[in-house]
């Protein structure tokens, strides 16, 4: 019955919320906020319920162990969290500059005729099915990166499929999202502001920097969008990250695993084991907590710098 209630009440709730918008706008909007908070709450509740068996058995050990041994029903997700952190870090470090580059290039460097085409093409890549990215990573990016890294002195990539490969692939995948958001903001910089900037004699580069600062809200929005995408990407990462569950590593040039790809890779067969499904949901729980931590840090930073 619970499920039925859940499903049946959603439509009326949304209709009511919409109706309320016309009458008491603010309360109507708040209902939508409540909707999303409730959704997250339900999802987290599901994680807790599903993960309960392994937490009951192992306590917090599942969050601290670093090996994955189904034959002995011993699971640990810490190495997966490390993988998520490392791949996201690599991805964001590469993607944010590129996204800024795309936004500025489109709006400042390219002639007007090319802007639309270039922009549409970048947007198009956001639509690429992730499995296509995965295949490209499998066939092209992995081997290319391996040759490249091993060519440099001191580079050691024994396998084409490592955390680094996943990070680079993620960067390519998430750049369009961040870029789209930043571009939107950039294009909406009001004419008076733009004219004022040039009136004081700024070069195009200096104007670009000022405009970027002006749209920092958009950049922040794009940052979180891209970061979320990077942390949540399952399929493409699963295909290139290398699947090393047995060892905790901080070397991005080694094979590894992320929490999202761990779930994607192991879930289909997890039902055959007693504690694997709970372990996977424990991983999801860990990812949620990590996301909360990042958000808290971001709020703190923003308040400190008063963005």
């Amino acid at each position, binding site marked *: 019955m619970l499920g039925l209630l859940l499903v049946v009440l959603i439509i009326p709730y949304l209709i009511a919320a919409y109706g309320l918008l016309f009458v008491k706008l603010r309360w109507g909007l708040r209902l939508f*906020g409540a909707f999303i908070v409730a959704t997250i709450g339900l999802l987290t509740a599901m994680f807790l319920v599903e993960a309960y068996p392994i937490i009951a058995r192992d306590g917090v050990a599942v969050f601290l162990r670093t090996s994955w041994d189904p034959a002995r029903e011993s699971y640990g997700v810490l190495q997966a969290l490390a993988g998520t952190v490392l791949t996201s870090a690599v991805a964001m470090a590469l993607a944010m500059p590129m996204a800024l580059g795309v936004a500025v290039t489109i709006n400042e460097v390219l002639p007007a005729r090319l802007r639309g085409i270039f922009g549409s093409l970048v947007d198009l890549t956001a639509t690429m099915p992730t499995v296509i990215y995965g295949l490209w990573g499998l066939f092209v990016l992995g081997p290319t990166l391996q040759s490249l890294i091993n060519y440099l002195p001191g580079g050691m990539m024994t396998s084409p499929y490592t955390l680094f490969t996943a990070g680079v692939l993620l960067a390519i995948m998430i750049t369009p999202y961040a870029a789209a958001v930043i571009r939107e903001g950039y294009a909406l910089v009001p004419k008076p502001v733009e004219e004022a900037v040039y009136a004081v004699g700024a070069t195009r580069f200096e104007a670009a920097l000022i405009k970027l600062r002006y749209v920092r809200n958009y950049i922040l929005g794009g940052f979180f969008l891209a970061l979320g995408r990077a942390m949540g990407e399952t399929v493409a990462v699963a295909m290139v990250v290398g699947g090393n569950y047995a060892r905790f590593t901080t070397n991005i040039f080694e094979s590894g695993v992320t929490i999202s790809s761990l779930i994607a890779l192991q879930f289909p067969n997890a039902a055959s084991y007693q504690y694997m499904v709970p372990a996977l949901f424990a991983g*999801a729980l860990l990812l*949620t907590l990590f996301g909360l931590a990042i958000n808290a840090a971001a709020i703190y930073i923003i308040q400190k710098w008063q963005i």
Partner: protein
Amino acid sequence: MTAARKLINWLGLGLFALLGVAAVVPLFLIIGDIYIKGIDAINRLGGLWHFLTALPPTPFDEKGGIGPMLVGTLYMTALGALLGIAVGFPLGVYIGEMRREKFANVSRVAVNILVEFPTIVVGLFVYAVMSLAKQSLNQYLLDPLSKALSPVGGWITQFIGPLDGFNAYAGAAALAIIMIPYVALITASAYASIEQQLREAAYAIGGREFNALFVVLRKAVSRAVVTAALLGTAKIAGETAPLLFTAFGNTYYAPFTGPTAAVSLWIWYAAQTPYSVQIASAYGAAAVLLTIILIIFIVARIRG
């Protein structure tokens, strides 16, 4: 203007351009690769119309298509996008416009967290809800409903009726949940960036808050909102993981109340077989998907 500033100007812009190009080169490579292989595949597998309507090929077949997959993806993406925009847009307005409120910030955090969930988990969530609800939903709502609608014609059972464990609506729901944060975040950025003066002017003109926010400020934010809708729709059109346990997939034309085919699921499967005809069909499918999205983008940009 000093020479130093000029130099910095060129270097700086050059750096941005370099970054922009670096972002875009792999993308173009991938797109090019897909279209080259995809168009070749479509030709080999029977031509465009055949490819868009026929059933998928087995390793023995020489011709094939993605007919059921196309229908499934279009249906589920449309429904998912509708719901995603319907919820995402007001949510974005709330987060962006009413930033001072504590609850708005809580919602923002919730949205940020939703974005980072592994997409397969969202699918599992919908699956869990579906499992709980299926029995009673069918019994109390859908059976009587489909009986009541049966005079309309047999075709209605393709859309409405008792649901199987795996069905198109579960798939659409999962896609909608995934899309909501994208629409919300971009809309929020748009509303948050409206300067105070413009906002005050809008309120002054618009009177009622609703008028101010949605009618007067429309021009200011509509581009961003359209982008949000497009980006979100494009994203869910290509999603695979959330559909695995909700729509499940199909290789035939079948009612939407049962397991439903999707282009992304077919690509997922076919690209990982060792049989060249199926791999070719995967590339063809990817090319078709990209083209559809491109058309939607262009149409929307022209009109909006």
